[in-house]
């Protein structure tokens, strides 16, 4: 993974001191809350329902065991011993004290971490395919480019006060595991006829209000032009994006109002005009960063059948929680943060320590967070899988449900977030209880539920096969259900099926929806494919059967 040099370290150290001074001035009454707000947000600090929330950046989801142990220690010392992994692959702490945040940032800086630009109207943490570098379907490893974009975006003098937040994701694989099509900018690594890497550039995707799928603005952008072209996009957005209405301020609204063709002309014109002053990504710099992501020293092994004669629980875990690896003899191991009865995406300090230990023992000392709110040990030898499984089981991290209905994406909702309209965690619990039987889950196969507590869509509900959105109706929590969203293979936005349902009916409604699938699926067909074949109607009808309370 990338290791800081003196420049990188100086920048985060100086940032810590800047924020320490800002926090001191705020607490001394020299900086009003209004003045402090944009400053603390650019350091990932929100003032939430009960306490501040600190969002720590995990650039493109990659962590060393040392960093993960530090996160565990911080969660213990400054929080209540729990962290929440998010869809931007970051970690949120829900109970830090404002006065201690500079100290937390100083501790993070000792392990080459920070919370820079994890919130606020600026370029956010860059995300990537969690299988980057090991996926069999990859053109090139996106992580060196992610790191370069991370650096370029950090404290960018021109683009730190944008109209609204700005999210970039990069993938090098055929299957879009980084949901690039619903990002402000999505980059797809490609190769030209000569084999040189470059990018297809998508602009204007996004969730939240008025969700949109990104439009391809460039079929192939050479690597050297990456930063200059991003600057052109951001300059057009910074100058012309709306600032008078927060709900119309994302770049997707600018693309929509100008039209894709006109927007493309604007970027190309800006790119041509600004080229001479734009930052250049040199081959030497790319090589320098790429070196940090060179493959670990894999052993020469053969693939083996590790489940032959093994206990059924292990076999199920192998099937659901491990993934093919491009190197023979290795598998990628998902660490499920979706144990039934726990909050999706949460990990205790003890669990983080356990995963850090396992990473050192069995996966070259590295851990990844995934956008589905799980962790991943990317490089586990197949002959060590059984030991790894046992250790994960001991820490309730081996629930064999990856890709199944209870591997839900869920934002923290009303229990923590001051933006939320409705709770999400209790609904997640209800769903976990109702679908607690693993054989039932396996029979249902791949069903993706994504749930958000408000329109901001941190839980990505628009792109869930089943999306759940919490809404406030006269002070009560109700839930709007949508069907047909998806990200992998083909990005589609779900359609709301009808009136919202009350909290106590959400899990039962979902059960009636999946019952239609069970009754009418054809062969091995997945839920989403049955839905596409049949259309919404039978699902809608079933959802509202026996449902007099819908309003």
């Amino acid at each position, binding site marked *: 993974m990338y290791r800081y040099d003196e*420049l990188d370290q*100086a920048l985060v150290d100086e940032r810590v001191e800047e924020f320490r001074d*800002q926090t001191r001035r705020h607490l001394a009454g020299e900086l009003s809350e209004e003045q402090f707000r*944009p400053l603390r947000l650019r350091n990932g600090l929100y003032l939430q329902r009960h306490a501040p929330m600190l969002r720590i950046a995990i650039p493109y989801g990659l962590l060393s065991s040392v960093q993960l142990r530090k996160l565990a220690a911080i969660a213990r010392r400054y929080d209540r011993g729990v962290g929440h992994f998010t869809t931007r692959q970051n970690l949120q702490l829900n109970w830090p004290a404002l006065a201690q945040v500079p100290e937390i940032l100083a501790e993070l800086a000792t392990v080459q971490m920070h919370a820079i630009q994890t919130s606020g109207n600026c370029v956010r943490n860059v995300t990537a395919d969690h299988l980057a570098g090991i996926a069999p379907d990859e053109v090139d490893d996106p992580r060196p480019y992610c790191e370069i974009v991370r650096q370029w975006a950090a*404290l960018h003098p021109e683009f730190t*006060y944008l109209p609204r937040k700005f999210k970039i994701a990069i993938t090098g694989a055929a299957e879009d595991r980084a949901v690039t099509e619903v990002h402000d900018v999505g980059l797809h690594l490609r190769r030209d006829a000569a084999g040189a890497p470059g990018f297809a550039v998508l602009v204007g995707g996004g969730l939240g209000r008025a969700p949109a799928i990104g439009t391809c603005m460039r079929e192939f952008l050479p690597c050297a032009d990456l930063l200059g072209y991003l600057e052109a996009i951001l300059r057009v957005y910074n100058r012309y994006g709306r600032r008078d209405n927060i709900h119309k301020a994302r770049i997707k609204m600018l693309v929509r109002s100008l039209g894709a063709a006109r927007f493309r002309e604007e970027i190309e014109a800006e790119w041509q*005009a600004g080229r001479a002053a734009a930052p250049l990504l040199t081959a030497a710099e790319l090589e320098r960063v790429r070196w940090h992501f060179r493959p670990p020293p894999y052993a020469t092994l053969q693939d083996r059948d590790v489940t032959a004669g093994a206990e059924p629980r292990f076999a199920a875990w192998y099937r659901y929680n491990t993934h093919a690896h491009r190197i023979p003899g290795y598998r990628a191991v998902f660490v499920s943060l979706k144990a039934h009865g726990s909050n999706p995406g949460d990990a205790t300090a003890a669990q983080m320590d356990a995963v850090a230990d396992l990473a050192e023992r069995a996966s070259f000392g590295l851990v990844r967070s995934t956008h589905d709110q799980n962790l991943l040990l990317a490089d586990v030898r197949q002959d060590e899988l059984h030991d790894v499984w046992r250790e994960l089981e001991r820490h309730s991290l081996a629930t064999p449900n990856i890709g199944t209905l209870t591997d839900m994406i869920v934002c923290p909702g009303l229990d923590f977030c001051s933006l939320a309209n409705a709770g999400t965690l209790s609904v997640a619990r209800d769903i976990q209880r109702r679908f607690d039987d693993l054989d039932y889950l396996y029979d249902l196969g791949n069903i993706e539920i994504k749930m958000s507590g408000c329109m901001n869509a941190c839980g990505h509900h628009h792109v869930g096969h089943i999306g759940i959105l919490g809404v406030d109706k006269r002070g009560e929590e109700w839930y709007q259900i949508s069907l047909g969203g998806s990200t992998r293979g083909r990005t589609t936005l779900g359609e709301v099926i009808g009136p919202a349902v009350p909290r106590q009916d959400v899990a039962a409604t979902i059960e009636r929806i999946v019952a239609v699938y069970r009754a009418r699926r054809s062969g091995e067909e997945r839920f989403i494919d049955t839905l596409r074949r049949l259309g919404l109607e039978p699902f809608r009808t079933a959802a509202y059967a026996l449902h007099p309370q819908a309003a």
Partner: protein
Amino acid sequence: MRCILRRREIVADDWAYPGETAPAGTPLIIPLAALRTGPQAGQLPLGVLLAPADAVEELAPVVAHLALVAVEFPDGGDGRGYSQARLLRTRLGFTGELRAVGAGVRQDQVFLMARCGFDSLQLAPGVDPRAAQRALTRYTVAYQPGAAGVSLERQRFFSF
């Protein structure tokens, strides 16, 4: 007398805005709209005030005749002025005094402003000019290409 930070020095402002009382002969910073109706000859040196929505491109024909461009930051959140400054410096070749002005010009923003090419800062009321002066040396490093107004020990990305 108003103080400004010019090239990191705290100095008395020797410019005025229309309507301000100033000694005879003090040059004026006029809004872009006033420039459109034709600046009076003999009023040089001439300064222009850009509002956030103003297009810097409009200044292209006259930029060589301008001694000062002031860019307005009406609040802490509106970042259009940063792009206006970059464009003035890198595309229009403006070499005169580039001034940030408005309620958004505070000590926590001045480092970025200087990196975008501002060499003059008219701080918001209440901002301690010495604190702002110190903030200009808050960082010794940066990743992006930027103006020379801030001395950096290290920088990562460069332009052509």
